[in-house]
């Protein structure tokens, strides 16, 4: 009945959705942001530890949400680990494009391996109302890494 939905709900997604990685409060995080999708009530708190050299030493999150948003956050926390802030921002932009269009034209260039890991979420582009579920974590990451205040909010709207 739902066979064509396996594109969206790939095994990786269902697995990360059920057992999200880095799902915890990160003690000593120096960047924290909250993300909200008021439409469906998804909500997450993102903790990031940026090293003095400007690299993401660690990222973790807590919250509730659908399989897509949990899986996306889970994959994100894995993927950005060890990246510079600039690289994280680049990834965020590319991921957004992947989620919206299903493809990422210049993914052959830098960060190709990372984008490869995020590829399972590409199926979301066929479900316009679900794109926000996939991008919420990345919006929240942008908010966390934004200059200035330590506490940030993002909303997927």
């Amino acid at each position, binding site marked *: *009945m*739902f066979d064509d939905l396996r594109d969206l709900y790939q095994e990786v997604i269902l697995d990360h959705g059920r057992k999200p990685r880095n799902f915890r409060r990160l003690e000593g995080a120096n960047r924290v942001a909250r993300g909200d999708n008021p439409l*469906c*009530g998804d909500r997450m708190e993102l903790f990031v530890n940026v090293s003095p050299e400007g690299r993401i030493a660690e990222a973790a999150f807590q919250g*509730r*949400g659908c399989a897509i948003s949990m899986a996306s956050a889970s994959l994100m926390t894995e993927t950005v680990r060890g990246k510079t802030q600039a690289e994280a921002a680049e990834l965020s932009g590319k991921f957004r494009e992947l989620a919206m269009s299903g493809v990422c034209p210049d993914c052959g260039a830098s960060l190709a391996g990372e984008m490869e890991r995020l590829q399972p979420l590409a199926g979301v582009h066929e479900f316009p109302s679900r794109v926000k579920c996939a991008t919420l974590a990345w919006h929240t990451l942008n908010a966390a890494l934004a200059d200035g205040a330590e506490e940030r909010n993002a909303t997927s709207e």
Partner: protein
Amino acid sequence: MDGHFAASDAGLDVARVREDFPILAQTVRGKPLVFLDSAASAQKPRQVISAMVRCMETAYANVHRGPYYLSEQATDAYEAARAAVARFLGAADAREVVFTRNATESINLVAHSYGRGVLRPGQAVLISEMEHHANIVPWQMLRDGHGVELRVCRVTEAGEIDLEDLSAKLADGKVGLVAVTHMSNVLGTVTPAERIAALAHEAGALVLFDGSQAAVHRRVDVQAIGADFYAFTGHKLYGPTGIGVLWARAELLDRMPPFLGGGEMISSVTFEKTEWAPAPAKFEAGTPPIVEAVGLRAAIDYVSAIGMPASEAHERRLVDHAMRRLSDVEGLTVLGRAQDRGGVFSFALDNAHPHDLSTLLDRAGIAVRAGRHCAEPLHARFGLEGGTCRASFGLYTTVEEVDTLAEALTKAREFFN
């Protein structure tokens, strides 16, 4: 109305009803559309659509303004719609009917005009845990801006208003207004309006009912209930968007200061001083939703021709069937089990987030809503902050569609296992 329903007093001829709703005949994602989101907004029968078209093609002009033929026609049609709403609600007088933009504005109007104009700081407004945000947020704004206390009546585990708690919260006589739903948009619970009105009045409070759902599913008689204010919205009653209704007893409308200022609602204007027109004009600033009023009137004619007995019987059959079929779905929890419930069901699967579930159902052509249905506090009350899916029925809903839903839910659970 062609009156082709008269014959079927044994019940509703759903196949015939469906012919009136052109939108239902389509396929979605290759499957026949199963529209189960009427509680968010109902589809429109061709009778409503063509009444609106006819108005715009033959008899349109601004109302109350031009002493010429088309404007007289439009004014008559607009005022006839007001009279039809008054009859529909069992109101004493058409002048008690105010047209607004939706139920939300109707309630805000009361919160502003009655809330700020008549209630005094220190008095309280009593709502319930099962309110739609439209019947929560305006009172919070009143509380924060006007110093009125906001009390919240508990909802029982079964999903009904806790009448003991209601009495207790009325006991000190401070409550000036009880504002509760006449039917929950999440639980389907129809609330005991007469009892609530009686309790409110005994305690010296007035009572407002949010009838956005109830007006669709139950016969409403504002005088028999003992309501002071009654709000509903056009688009859920098979009518157009852009129009809502506030009914209030004439004496209350007379006492209330106006809400929005502008044309139509004044009797004279100088820069120093403006005099208000009598109700309902006082509350209808600017050009009203003229074509929408004509459409709403056609919607009322439509449901009236079917008749509440037939449509309630149809709904009861659907609700009973749904109760049975949904209880067979493993891992499914249905919220609430009220004695008197209309065709609205919110549910959660144990292994799927509502948003994921609704995406699956959509692939099967089934339109249900996912989220918290503008009733966050109620979801918190039931420990379902993540939301639910909601299926809601209309005149055009079939027993087979309920089966389709139940089967899809079973399959969805397998999918996520």
